[in-house]
């Protein structure tokens, strides 16, 4: 099978989601079933390739949508938001990883809290 050149270690497919006001939106996604039984989801912002709402802006809704399609239990989902390096000389477009934790109300995630991770931390989490 041909591999999309945009795909990488942290993203092996595109994921379509509904953004603000149901705007059709798209991000990169990698789902890893970890040895501890939990599912690690890495959602990557793809900027110009995303026609709709940015990942950060609807991260709770996006995590809910991913949860429902993955079949994972809410407590079993570890969610990481990834912004790739755009190669810009402006520092705000460098690569970053954030673990996002949410509250679960029985139907959906809300109240996201972001914690910055290093790439090495993410790599370790992918192998646990």
């Amino acid at each position, binding site marked *: 099978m041909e591999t999309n050149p945009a795909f990488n270690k942290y993203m092996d497919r595109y994921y379509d989601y509904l953004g*603000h006001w149901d705007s*059709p939106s798209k991000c990169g996604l990698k789902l890893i079933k970890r040895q501890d039984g939990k599912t690690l989801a890495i959602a990557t912002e793809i900027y110009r390739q995303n026609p709709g*709402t*940015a990942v950060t802006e609807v991260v709770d809704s996006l995590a809910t949508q991913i949860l429902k399609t993955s079949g994972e239990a809410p407590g079993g989902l570890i969610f990481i938001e990834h912004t790739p390096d755009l190669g810009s000389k*402006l520092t*705000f*477009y460098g690569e970053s990883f954030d673990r996002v934790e949410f509250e679960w109300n029985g139907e959906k995630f809300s109240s996201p809290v*972001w914690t*910055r991770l290093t790439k090495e931390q993410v790599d370790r989490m992918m192998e646990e």
Partner: protein
Amino acid sequence: MKFKLIYPRWEKLEGQTIFYLPPHGPVVMAAAVPEDIEIDFTDENVEDLVIDDSADLVGISMMLTTQVKRGWEIADQYRALGKKVIFGGISTMLHAEETMLHADSVFLGEVEGRLEQVFADFRKNDLKKIYNYLSKPPDMNLIGPANRNILKKDLYYHKGFRMVDLFHASRGCIYDCYPCAVRYLGGRGFRPRPIDRVVEELSQMDNNRLFIVDNSLALDTEWEKELFKAMIPLKKKWVSHTIEDKNEVLDLAAQAGAWYVYQAVFDTSDYIRNRIKQYHDYGIAVEGTILLGLDNQTEDDIKRLIDFLLEIDLDLAEFTVLAPFPHTKAYSDLLKQNRIFDKDWNHYNAGKVVYQPKHMSPERLTELYHYAWDTFYKDEPQTMKMFNLINRVMSKELADGTYTARRRDLADLSFGKKVTDTV
């Protein structure tokens, strides 16, 4: 049927030159209103708003985040009178959820071809809570000339001098700039208007001086060149955001009447230095737009940047502090890092610091913001620099026979009020 359309006032930046331009959103919106509807427009920045029950439907058009609280206040008063209120415009889209709390209806997206249905729904007492066209931009051929007849044009003069009229030749943007929400508002594609439609509108405009408000004209070289070629015979004089740095494009822009451009100055590189020089080589003046408070700026960087501005012979400079408007990457990043401490939208005027800067305190950034304005305009005040720019355009107009003398009958008025020393 009478439609009351309102553009709410907002507080101007302390210490800045105050001027008012005819708003663009309301006139674009008005062009899409069915012809049988009477529009009564009030720009609250230049005239008092009288709230009464004479209108059938009230529309509130908001561009800036600093307008939203006033817009909501106006809506609350009309709704208390039993009037239905619909909101639209850029900051309605940025603040849609909050605005819905004060609205009978919100319109998200671009209006062309959509308002017939909205007014039909109103007439059937079936106004929808939301009209969502955010992901459905209209056919660009539908964008006709804006309806500037709704404006009380005499209110946009200062001592008899007419302000520029706003105009747009394209929508959308391919870039994802850090402080900008256009990717959310206008989609991620560049959507130029057909050149003949642009020329049609320009030909109808009675103002020779324009501000082309497109986010950037530098997104499609061939379209840009065709646009400028088509504009040459019209002899308009205009201000715009960035023009592409190709010599043949700048040459055509100058022939088409480029007066001055807003150019972001984000570092002290030779690229910026040469960019400014290149504009000047084609007789195009430059107003630098300088954003302060980014994470890559220390105090020393800001001071060095201001020294650099004085070296490169900018014609004007406009300093702002980063305002993390909703639906921007700046907002997303600062939100993730829990650095936004002020959510009073009236403070999002790009002159107040509403977040924790990375390398200094908010108070220190505020001081540097004032230092920037004071230092840049120390030897030649802003009004004098603006006067120089006006002289420059007058010379060009006199040379090509398009100069219109100031209105003597408005000589003692400034934006509809007896002249004071505010400008």
